[in-house]
């Protein structure tokens, strides 16, 4: 194994470590979402998270148009925060709207 290649690999691992999502302090109040995409007019944002696995109760804490555990939600980009951990929202801003698997928006409020 060549030393310089090993150094390059370590550089890659280091970059991955530096770029990893940071654990938000006070995770009860802050929840991270995996950013997916923005609508063409920029007013809506699609993102997803397994909220049930994260401890939220479906129908109480959140809702969505799909019956599966993984739901896709739509949010207002103006409410999104961005740091090195990616895009995130405060739990108070978790939306209760969703899109179904075919991409149709459904407002459940």
């Amino acid at each position, binding site marked *: *194994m*060549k030393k*310089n*290649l*090993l150094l*390059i*690999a*370590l*550089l*890659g*691992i280091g*970059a*991955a*470590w530096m*770029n*990893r*999502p940071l654990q938000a302090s006070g995770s009860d109040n802050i929840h*991270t*979402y*995996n*950013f*997916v*995409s923005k609508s063409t007019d920029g007013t809506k944002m*699609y*993102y*997803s*998270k*397994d909220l049930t696995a994260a401890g939220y109760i479906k129908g109480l804490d959140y809702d969505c148009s799909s019956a*599966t555990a*993984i739901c*896709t939600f739509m949010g207002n980009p103006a409410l999104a925060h961005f740091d090195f951990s*990616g895009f995130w929202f405060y739990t108070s801003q978790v939306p209760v709207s969703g899109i179904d698997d*075919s*991409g149709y928006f459904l407002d459940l409020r």
Partner: protein
Amino acid sequence: MLRKLTTGLLVLLFSYTSFGKIFALEAFKGTLYNQPFPHVLTTPLIYLIPAAELLTAIALLLEKTRKSGLYSALILLIIFTLYITAILLHLFHKTPCSCGGIFRDLSWRQHLWLNLLLTGLTFIALFSHTKKSIPSPLNLHL
């Protein structure tokens, strides 16, 4: 020279992408669930993709397995390039995000160009590696 540079570039790419996924497995899971393929495929892919990338990086590091590593890198790059092409041709019912590590700011079109460049470089590196491993009649000691 180009072969060495390409090998270095691929080691950097696959060590970064594999560990990027391992360090952020939950985020990667979310990304996969938003890709336009059946969810039944998602669970195995969560582990298979980083494992394949990690094995490729390791294979590239070792002299004995470098050629296999280049083949593996070429296959992975071709698969991803075909996937991006399918997305750009709107063959799926939705366009997923192109998010992932430091490449999250790249559009799918930019991703495609990057992948085509890397695939081309890998192909050249593999060809020159194969050429190098064939002993020239001039070098034979009879």
